[in-house]
């Protein structure tokens, strides 16, 4: 299953466990025992029988969606969702018809992506709709291999931190516990740390890159997905220096929560519970440490198509789905337990995505961009003030070398 293969080639392949495997019998149903099994991406899931049933239903829905995608491929061609090359066509009626069909395709695609990309098509569709393919096409074919060769053996604060985190990234996962898995993850992270020295390496990216590897199958594609994510999809400076982008997103999120879920926001504020306490990790790891892997992948399906606003939709939905329970809390521990239990058991991605997109209401990327612009000065002032305060303190024990 995890054979040694050439760098950049398909290095792992997860076989989904057989359905019969999980189907609980009447006795387990009654006993409500905890069942342990591996999910589609090799993660160990611990759940009760209800969770297993939900997962089975979800798996069935995924299969049905797969049939829709295959039918479309058969009908419109394998790459029907790729951006059409209008310029290469003859003028006149051809162009108009193509524009119309492109529009129809994009509406179909949006709907289909919300319902989930079949796992087999995920690498190809992500690569295309995220813009990774385009980014990849602007550099020489050998870019990734050259980069990896050039940085081999180099030691920087980033590579040290990466080495420290490799065994701490999804420990217990069957592929990331192997040398090949860790080596592949290392190359992607180290390669990226040299591509963008402002980001270098930020803890959290290890989880993101790990999931990208599991989905994309090849290191190089995972690398380009990471690049497009950090450079185009997410807000700038999410992972750099003092995480200023992340601070901005958190402020925007707090504002949105007050608007979209005012009762929860008011209740938590009265408890002096800062929602960033839980939401920071969601935004930095893109839910990969909180949601079941298959649900995370469904969120990422939409993220790569619709952009970073999806993170707000999903984060708001998690609060919204637990509104009544959250309003009963009086201690921060209870708030965290409710959110944690809820996220860990969100085995049905449609439950989450329905709330995220149908109940939260629409938010355009433009609105979010405006909100960010509004929050940026305050974040910068706050970070700057903190830095100046700390610098003014007597620092007798400054480390000799840069810490990162």
């Amino acid at each position, binding site marked *: 299953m995890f054979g040694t293969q050439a760098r950049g080639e398909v290095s792992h392949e997860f076989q989904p466990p057989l359905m019969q495997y999980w189907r609980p019998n009447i006795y387990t149903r009654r006993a409500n025992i905890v069942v342990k099994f591996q999910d589609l991406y090799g993660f160990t899931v611990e759940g009760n029988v209800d969770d297993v049933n939900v997962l089975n239903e979800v798996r069935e829905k995924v299969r049905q969606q797969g049939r829709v995608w295959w039918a479309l491929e058969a009908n419109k061609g394998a790459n029907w969702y790729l951006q059409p090359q209008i310029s290469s066509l003859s003028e006149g009626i051809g162009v108009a018809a193509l524009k119309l069909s492109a529009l129809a395709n994009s509406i179909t695609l949006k709907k289909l992506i919300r319902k989930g990309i079949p796992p087999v098509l995920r690498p190809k569709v992500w690569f295309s709709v995220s813009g990774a393919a385009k980014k990849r096409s602007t550099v020489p074919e050998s870019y990734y291999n050259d980069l990896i060769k050039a940085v081999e053996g180099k030691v920087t604060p980033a590579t040290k*931190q990466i080495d*420290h*985190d490799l*065994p*701490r*990234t*999804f*420990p217990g996962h069957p592929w990331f516990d192997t040398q090949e898995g860790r080596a592949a993850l290392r190359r992607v992270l180290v390669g990226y740390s040299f591509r963008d020295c402002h980001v270098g390496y*930020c*803890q*959290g990216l*290890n*989880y993101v890159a790990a999931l990208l590897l599991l989905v994309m199958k090849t290191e190089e594609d995972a690398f380009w997905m990471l690049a497009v994510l950090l450079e185009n999809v997410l807000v700038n400076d999410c*992972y*750099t*220096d*003092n*995480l*200023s982008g*992340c*601070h901005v997103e958190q402020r925007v999120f707090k504002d949105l929560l007050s608007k979209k879920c005012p009762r929860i926001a008011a209740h938590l504020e*009265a*408890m*002096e519970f*800062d929602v*960033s*306490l*839980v939401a*920071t*990790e969601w935004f*930095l*790891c893109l839910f990969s*440490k909180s949601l079941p892997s298959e649900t995370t992948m469904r969120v990422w399906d939409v993220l790569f198509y619709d952009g970073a606003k999806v993170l707000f939709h999903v984060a708001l939905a998690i609060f919204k789905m637990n509104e009544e329970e959250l309003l009963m809390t*009086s*201690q*921060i*521990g209870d708030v*965290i*337990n409710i*959110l*944690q239990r809820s996220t860990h058991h969100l085995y049905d991605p449609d439950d989450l995505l329905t709330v995220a997109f149908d109940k939260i209401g629409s938010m355009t990327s433009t609105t979010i961009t405006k909100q960010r612009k509004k929050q940026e000065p305050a974040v910068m002032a706050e*970070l700057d003030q*903190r830095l100046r*305060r*700390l610098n003014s*303190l*007597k*620092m*007798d*024990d*400054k*480390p000799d*070398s840069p*810490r*990162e």
Partner: protein
Amino acid sequence: MANSRNKNINAKLVLLGDVGAGKSSLVLRFVKGQFVDFQESTIGAAFFSQTLAVNDATIKFEIWDTAGQERYHSLAPMYYRGAAAAVVVYDTTNQASFACAKKWVTELQEQGNTNIVMALAGNKSDLLDSRKVTAEEAQVYAQENGLFFMETSAKTAQNVNEIFHEIAKRLPRAQPPQNPSGMVLMERPPVNGTSSSCCS
């Protein structure tokens, strides 16, 4: 369970320290009695709670285990704001982590709650052969700065419960109300006397 004479105190506790010093491992040992060789790296912070009975009071620790990487330090104020206690952790086999611990102590002294109970934990004390920071050096520093110091090992459990017990003993008994006025306080007894939870 606390009897009616006992005080119930909720105490926010924050763990700060360099990356890989063993903050999460200390918490895992304290809260669950477990140790794993490779603890998942913490992003943002993880929350745990643990209840301790000390002398006349029951202390419920609400623990924030923070991420160690330097760029995450800008998030720290959110976690240490209003904290009753802090455990600043360094790795006894890593001199740079001790320097980092001192920076945290300075920041807490300047920015934290003025009555904060601070502990300095020299972790990984089981790794005798690779020790870089002596207990004496840390002890002197701790005394000068009004912290109490213990060498700990999350791996062998040495001094882990002790350090949290010591904090519990030192917490001021007259706690200012933790909830803003107007809140309805619902005292729910913890299930099984000791409750623990974590958020990874």
